[in-house]
């Protein structure tokens, strides 16, 4: 048995383990028999081990370039760099579904291990839901055509197709597993919510057990979105980071609803309210996570990704329908158990502001959902397929995003239940004053007033940041007054002791910085497209760009031709930086023609000179459709054909025929090399004009700095506190004591 056969056997065994886990947990749950539930949990552990083996087997196949595996042959080649060989697994249909199932099995094992002594009524049903999802995804690989990652090829090709050059970027190597981990981890709170609904245990225990998984899902999804935006900015050569494309929207929708969920569960924990809302939110979040997976496989929407209709689209749609219909029916049947314990006493309370922010976040998600699916809605209503462009999204999303920032500033300043007028004045006074000063300064010293939306965003952000800073200062001051440790140490202590609270505030700081950056870079961008020859200069904003000289080189390992440029960027006459933007042309085939380089994939390496204030960005595209160059390429290819192809092609199946064909291929490669060298010289002599796009993007770097701060804040909030660890240990002792007493 080969390792690939063994891997396939592991996949079948994982399917069986999930099926056993589902059956055993339902049996154990119905009969209150703990042994079956424990056995089901071990079934999930087994599935996790088996799926890990599947991943190891496939990774080994990628590393040794085993082209007998279709997945390897279609997404890797002998010349693919090792990092991209290892990450090519999730660049495919079967590989990405395996990644889903694998992360699901590991996360499920983690949460079931953590709750093995707790929530006896809820866990069996949560286990059944998680196993059901495991059955679905492993079953998809086994039963849906084209989704089996262990499919073999016969005859075995000598070389693989390789990874799309656009995806050969470190951000794209990590981006898919981050997004998928985000999607998958939302299945944990979803499964426990369903478990709590079935078992009618609708207190906060299911929330406490799975809150960290929800937070981790949010962190992974945030990292995935940030990496995708970063890749788009530096790799795609258009200078943007977000285009309201369905594939981008698909990841943003669960992020928004997940963010609302993470806030509203705090209201249930503290005030016993929003129970229906919370279970509904997590069901919608998970359904949107599945929708994100479905969208890129369904072919139902036009997008920058040429989504193809695949065999897994329909089963995924059925799963989404099942999740939504099943959870809605369950919630309706449990409405009596989901009654709020209290009501909002005052609109000037933290819970009221959380509710408002929840409505805004859901509103944002709804608008994006509506805009994304508008082509289908329009077709259903009018019979004509229509689309909505970025300005429509901007018109609706901008005001809601501004309000989100405002309420992000108000929420932390308010107390639960209600706040007195005097205290509100004390807490709100300084941030409001600071925001007013910022507003006046922006109007007086910048041209922000020309963009009212951005001006309001900056003002509200100043208010929110000042309010959050005040919270940190008040906490550290109080701690310092108690211990006298000094302000810095006190700040550290107060954050460590209240991780959830101050981690959350740190997230808010990061998100506000990112929102400010988005407002600034989209409202005040300077952009220009210029055709240049060596020695030409152009001015964009305060910058002058001079095209100093062209450069050309060839990478034989990657079969890549690069046309680059050396450009000098000056500001007020002073040299700021010398940049080397370039364009890579990857040969599309081994036919030995010059044209093959310009028929394959082309990628841009942008030139950037960035700082905290603004980012100078440029990308280049040589004009190869110039008649002289077109002529040169056509003539070179004709001469290569004339010099190398005999009147009668040798038959590669006959003895000596294969040798003769190899000789022809080598001769063509040699002639092709000579022609390419000539073309490189023409480019370096400045015979080919170059189109430059130049952007000056204010504050753009803060999108990723803010995002990183948000992620760090999320990790702080997710990190268990000492009291939580103690509580967990005491839970274990309590369970053991109960077991021993039972035996006695």
């Amino acid at each position, binding site marked *: 048995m080969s390792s690939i056969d063994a891997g396939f056997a592991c996949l079948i065994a994982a399917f069986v383990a999930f099926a056993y886990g589902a059956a055993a947990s339902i049996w154990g749950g119905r009969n209150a028999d703990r042994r079956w539930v424990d056995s089901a949990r071990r079934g999930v552990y087994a599935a996790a081990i088996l799926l890990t083996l599947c991943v190891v087997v496939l990774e080994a196949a990628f590393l040794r370039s085993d082209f007998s595996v279709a997945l390897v042959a279609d997404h890797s080649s002998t010349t693919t760099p090792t990092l991209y060989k290892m990450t090519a697994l999730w660049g495919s249909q079967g590989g990405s579904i395996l990644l889903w199932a694998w992360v699901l099995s590991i996360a499920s094992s983690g949460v079931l291990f953590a709750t093995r002594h707790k929530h006896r009524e809820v866990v069996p049903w949560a286990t059944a839901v998680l196993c059901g999802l495991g059955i679905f995804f492993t079953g998809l690989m086994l039963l849906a055509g084209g989704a089996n990652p262990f499919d073999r090829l016969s005859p075995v090709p000598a070389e693989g197709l390789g990874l799309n050059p656009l995806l050969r970027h470190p951000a794209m190597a990590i981006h898919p597993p981050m997004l998928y981990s985000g999607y998958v981890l939302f299945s944990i709170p979803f499964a426990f919510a369903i478990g709590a609904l079935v078992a009618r245990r609708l207190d906060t225990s299911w929330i406490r057990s799975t809150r960290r998984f929800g937070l981790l899902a949010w962190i992974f999804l945030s990292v995935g979105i940030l990496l995708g935006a970063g890749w788009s900015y530096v790799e795609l050569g258009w200078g943007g980071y977000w285009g309201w494309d369905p594939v981008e929207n698909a990841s943003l929708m669960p992020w928004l609803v997940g963010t609302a969920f993470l806030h509203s569960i705090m209201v249930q924990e503290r005030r016993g309210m929003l129970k229906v809302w919370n279970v509904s939110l997590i069901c919608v979040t998970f359904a949107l996570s599945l929708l994100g997976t479905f969208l890129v496989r369904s072919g139902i929407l036009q997008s920058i990704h*040429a989504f*193809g*209709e695949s065999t897994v689209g329909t089963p995924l749609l059925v799963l989404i329908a099942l999740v939504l219909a099943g959870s809605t029916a369950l919630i309706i049947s449990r409405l009596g158990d989901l009654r709020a314990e209290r009501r909002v006493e005052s609109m000037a309370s933290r819970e009221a502001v959380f509710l408002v922010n929840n409505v805004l976040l859901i509103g944002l998600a709804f608008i994006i959902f509506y805009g994304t699916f508008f082509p289908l809605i329009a077709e259903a209503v009018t019979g004509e397929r229509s689309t909505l462009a970025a300005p429509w999204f901007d018109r609706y999303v901008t005001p809601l995003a501004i309000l989100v920032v405002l309420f992000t500033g108000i929420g932390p300043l308010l107390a639960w239940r209600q706040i007195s007028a005097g205290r509100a004045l004390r807490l709100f006074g300084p941030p409001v004053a600071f925001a007013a000063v910022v507003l006046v300064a922006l109007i007086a010293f910048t041209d922000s007033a020309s963009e009212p939306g951005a001006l309001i965003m900056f003002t509200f952000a100043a208010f929110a940041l000042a309010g959050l800073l005040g919270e940190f200062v008040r906490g550290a001051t109080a701690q310092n007054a108690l211990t006298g440790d000094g302000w810095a140490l006190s700040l550290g202590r107060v954050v460590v002791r209240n991780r959830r609270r101050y981690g959350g505030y740190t997230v808010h700081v990061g998100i506000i910085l990112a929102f400010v950056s988005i407002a600034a870079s989209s409202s005040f961008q300077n952009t220009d497209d210029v055709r240049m020859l060596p020695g030409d200069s152009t001015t964009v904003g305060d910058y002058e760009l001079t095209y100093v000289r062209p450069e050309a080189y060839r990478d034989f390992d990657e079969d890549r031709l690069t046309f680059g440029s050396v450009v000098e960027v000056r500001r007020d006459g002073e040299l700021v930086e010398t940049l080397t933007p370039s364009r890579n042309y990857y040969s599309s085939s081994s*036919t030995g023609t010059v044209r093959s380089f310009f028929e394959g994939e*082309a990628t841009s390496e942008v030139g950037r000179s960035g700082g905290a204030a603004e980012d100078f960005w440029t990308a280049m595209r040589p004009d190869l459709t110039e008649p002289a160059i077109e002529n040169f390429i056509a003539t070179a290819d004709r001469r290569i054909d004339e010099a190398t192809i005999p009147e009668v092609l040798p038959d590669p199946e006959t003895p000596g025929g294969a040798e003769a064909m190899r000789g022809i291929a080598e001769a063509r490669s040699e002639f092709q090399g000579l022609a390419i060298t000539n073309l490189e010289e023409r480019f370096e002599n400045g015979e080919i004009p170059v189109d430059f796009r130049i952007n000056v993007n204010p504050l753009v770097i803060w999108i990723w700095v803010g995002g990183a701060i948000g992620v760090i804040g999320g990790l702080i909030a997710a990190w268990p506190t000492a009291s939580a660890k103690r509580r967990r240990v005491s839970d274990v002792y309590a369970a053991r004591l109960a077991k021993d007493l039972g035996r006695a």
Partner: protein
Amino acid sequence: MDPDRKRKIRLVVALSVAVLLATALVWTSFNASTEAKSPSELLAATPAGAVDAYGKVVTEETLPDGSREFVIADPEDTSQTVPVEYEGQVPDPFREGRDVIVTGLMVDGTLVAEKDSLITKCPSKFSDEAEDDPNIVIDESL
């Protein structure tokens, strides 16, 4: 005021606002939307306003002023083609054979595109199209 009555009023106000906003959303979306048309649909009836034309790039050429001319063919019937005049940023994956979406107005049988409106689809990781693309399939005859 009676708390129950107060709650009912709040609910009615909130629902009314939601309905108003939803109506505005639907109204503006249909007004702001652009019809998506294939070359054969564009040739059959010239639309009055802007359209999103989608098709496969057949030929491309850059003009001396840096603008670009290309022809898109109907995905269903490649004999139905429409020429496109385009100015602005050209996405990296753009080339002959690729599926594109471009927004513009039909003028005398030519689509005059809006600046920077060209979207070129990346070959999908999840469809068979990438594998069937003749440009990325290895030519094993040589």
